[in-house]
């Protein structure tokens, strides 16, 4: 079941996403990722500097001013 169904009606909030301002009506990190068309297993996520595991994204509520960062695999030494 989608945890967001129990949430209040969506309102627009402003987030920082990877350093840039961004508005969304998503209530949770999971909803935001779906809205952005982001594949859940291709990225790692953190909100306000704290890692949010895949399994916690549906529970991670978003609030005005939250900073989301997303990480992707790259080459490395």
């Amino acid at each position, binding site marked *: 079941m989608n945890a967001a169904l129990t949430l209040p009606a969506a309102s627009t909030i402003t987030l920082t996403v990877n350093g840039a301002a961004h508005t969304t009506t998503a209530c949770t990190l999971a909803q935001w990722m779906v809205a952005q068309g982001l594949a859940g297993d*291709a990225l790692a996520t953190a909100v306000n500097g704290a890692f949010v595991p895949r399994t916690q994204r549906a529970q991670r509520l978003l609030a005005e001013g939250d900073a989301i960062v997303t*990480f*992707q695999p*790259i080459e490395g*030494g």
Partner: protein
Amino acid sequence: MTTPMTTSPRDWKAGRSAQVKEEPAKRAGDTEQNALPSRLDAPATWQIGGRKLQSRFLLGTAGYPSPAVLQQAIAASGAQVVTVGLRRQLAAGAPASADGDFFGIIKSTGAHLLPNTAGCRTAREAITLAQMARELFDTPWIKLEVVGDEHTLQPDPFELVDAARQLVKDGFEVFPYCTDDLVSCQRLLDVGCKILMPWGAPIGSGQGLVNPGALRTLRARLPGVPLIVDAGIGSPADAVQAMELGLDGVLLNTAVAKALNPVRMARAFGLGIQAGRLAFEAGVMAQQDMAVASTPVAGHPILL
């Protein structure tokens, strides 16, 4: 021809200069790394981070001319472990497909992935990045990199120990990129690291082993602890030297990626690392101050 070897290198007591007289492990468990090959053309397996490997070469994946060259270099190297990284995405909400083919190629090689925490300056950052890497790459292995100086990219031993302590508690297999300082290495072992990756020289510098004496000390004082020289290797000769010192493996990136022909250089390093390891197992002869005649002519000149 292949001759089965019967003596363990640990039994070698002839006072060879390059041979390290080792003490029983005090800080690490029994991680015997010296099983000899039954046939010289088949390298003995060794263990690192709970995995059995044949190759002692760990290869970085950054900075190659193309993904195809990277793929061929990994194959030519024989490496069974490759390092990967994580990057914060730049554009808000940009899809993660840009490097998708990179990750696909890496996965298709079948090599074990060793994600790094490159770019971290604090334990807190490194821990967060390690958690992300574990999820994204589906491995508990982490090359823990916490840099303390911008010019040398020298590891910060204090932040490193702090991060390692917490990551070990959280179930990670920590491969700490560290300096060659004995006591800070001991501290890393004290907080639960089972592997050490001392630097040979600053990252990407190609200077080789700047301080072989320190590495020799680590080998002598930390027997049984897997030691992988990481960073600063320039030519295969440097890798041979590291292996002859009795280190257990070599991790490098730039020396292959920036070679004129990375694929051939990957092979050169693979062979060098094998040669160095065999030389260590064989026991390098002691240097002599003067000539010692090798042809047995019974000690007198031949007067026809």
